[in-house]
């Protein structure tokens, strides 16, 4: 029997092995923004509710690093994230919020129930800022340095162990 007979079987086994290996690897569904390292593009958002201040890209260019939090009152992981945003704020981080496709009364109700960690909240009804900075979902959090350059992206809700990471990223660009 020629050794060549074994070649197809070997090739098939190789393929199955490769597929099995890939199947056991954790799936990464995150779409990372290519805008990390780039300056915030121009935008100007109206205040998200009565008594709040709106935001624009110029808000971020005053020398102070900030967190830009993309969220919405209809987003369930945002509720889980709320206490961790609060603790970031307590540890000195300034957090600016962008509310995606949201109503002022819903935003006010959410903040009254889960706390308001934001210094300003803008309203983005058309996901314009989200698209402009390469964010693909809610919630996401960006570290913006004092010149208005995007330095870091956190995808998904902030958990307890993400808090020191974000604080360190803020410290890095200070």
């Amino acid at each position, binding site marked *: 029997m020629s050794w060549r007979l074994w070649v197809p079987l070997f090739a098939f086994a190789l393929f199955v092995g490769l597929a099995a290996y890939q199947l056991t690897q954790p799936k990464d569904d995150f*779409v990372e923004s290519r805008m990390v390292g780039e300056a915030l593009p121009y935008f100007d958002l109206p205040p998200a509710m009565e008594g709040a201040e709106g935001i624009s890209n110029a808000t971020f260019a005053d020398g102070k690093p900030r967190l830009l939090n993309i969220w919405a009152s209809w987003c369930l992981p945002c509720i889980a994230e709320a206490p961790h945003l609060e603790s970031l704020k307590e540890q000195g981080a300034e957090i600016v919020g962008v509310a995606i496709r949201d109503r002022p009364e*819903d935003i006010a109700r959410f903040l009254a129930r889960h706390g308001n960690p934001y210094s300003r909240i803008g309203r983005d009804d058309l996901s314009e800022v*989200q*698209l402009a900075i390469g964010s693909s979902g809610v919630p996401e959090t960006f570290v913006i340095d004092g010149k208005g350059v995007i330095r870091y992206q956190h995808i998904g809700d902030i958990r307890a162990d993400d808090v020191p990471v974000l604080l360190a990223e803020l410290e890095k660009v200070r």
Partner: protein
Amino acid sequence: MIRALVSSIVLALAIPLAAQQSMPPAPYAYRQLDDPAQEAAAQDLMETLRCLTCQSQSIADSDAPMAGDMRHQVRIRIAAGESPGEIRSWLMQRYGDYVSYKPEVSSTTWPLFAIPLLLVLVVGVVLLGRFRRRA
């Protein structure tokens, strides 16, 4: 009594759904452009862009709110005179290859195009060899 119970359960189930869908879609999410040529260009471009939240649909196909917002962007930019290529590269700049829903040869995707050709070539050579031997 039962009817009241059932309707209250149905209502309670409907609240979270209503909360997410209570905002009207972006103006040009479902509205076509007035100029048919521009709308055709926008439609062609939308077929080649991937919905970011549903991922296996083009934004032309998807009813996700974010896909609606992306269609709005595409249509107002086309209406403002931007070329489809410019809009496409604006999105690729932000989301990388992920947002592309059109197969393109690049430094990472070339094996997908090269391997089938290579296989056909190998098969051709093998078959040629066999036919020759027989003849």
